[in-house]
């Protein structure tokens, strides 16, 4: 069971992040396109998406990335700092898919007294198809921190 406040000292290589499950809907895709000023019709216009050969409207690239970022930040907690994130889209996802974001710790590193953790990330659909692959680097709070690590 994950501690209430995850510390660098609690994390080791091979540790896993709690799975984050997302079920995108057409309404979600529409709202995400609206707030990102993304007028690309493949995300909200099903007849057009079919014309391009897709089975339905598509989850946006940036929404896949947002899900992975969310999985990391939810796991690391509010005292951690997300330093880097990268992801690649590998397969399409459409409304009705069940997307599960998972992660595993691949590196822990102390540098100048600060604790950094790297995670490999995946987002897979209900058929276990890899939709997005990613990596994140997080600075974690340490047990002997006197206060939260203000980076703001």
């Amino acid at each position, binding site marked *: 069971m994950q501690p209430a406040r995850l510390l660098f000292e609690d994390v080791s290589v091979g540790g896993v992040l709690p799975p984050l499950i997302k079920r995108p809907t057409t309404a979600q895709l529409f709202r995400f396109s609206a707030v*990102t000023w993304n007028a690309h019709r493949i995300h909200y216009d099903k007849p057009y998406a079919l014309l391009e050969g897709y089975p339905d409207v598509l989850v946006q690239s*940036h929404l896949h990335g947002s*899900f992975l970022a*969310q999985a990391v930040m939810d796991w690391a907690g509010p005292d951690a700092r997300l330093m880097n994130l990268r992801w690649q889209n590998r397969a399409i996802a459409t409304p009705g898919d069940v997307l599960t974001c998972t992660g595993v710790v691949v590196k822990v590193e102390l540098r100048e007294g600060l604790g950094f953790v790297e995670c490999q990330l995946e987002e897979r659909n209900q058929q276990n198809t890899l939709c997005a692959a990613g990596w994140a680097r997080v600075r974690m709070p340490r047990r002997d921190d006197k206060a939260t690590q203000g980076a*703001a």
Partner: protein
Amino acid sequence: MNVSLSIICERIKRELGKSRRLPVGTIRRREFERFAIAADDHNRLFFDDAFARSHGYKSAFAPPLYLSSVMGWEAGPPQESLRADGTPSNDATALAIEGLRLMGGGQELEFHRPVADETDVVMEFSVTNVEFKQGRSGELLVIEVQKKYLDGEGRPLVTCRENFIAR
């Protein structure tokens, strides 16, 4: 190589290394909160100033992918200037890929500072690479752009390298 892909590849190559500095404007809290809601991300750091302060921040701030996910910061082009696929053909960051289908391939992001309400932001945009590839479903171009977001004092906020696939 497909003729149109070849022409477009050469056209994009001519843009390599040319950096454009574009105003993003002033970041507004409601906008980044809407982004968080649309992404189904209810992290209190994005909504609750007191909570954010209790964890070392000055205030609530934008979700990390907010800046690099927004496709345009101006009022936007009129409808008649959109391409058939809905994407703009003439805004400052539009790629010259007329006739091709475009899809986001992913991003590589470095987060330098939190992006809070009322932060003034500018973006430095450049096309950094274009490569012709033979994909599983045919020929395609992989186009890499870089977007550096800076605050009003020139301090980096987010650096983003993004890939697009055009076919």
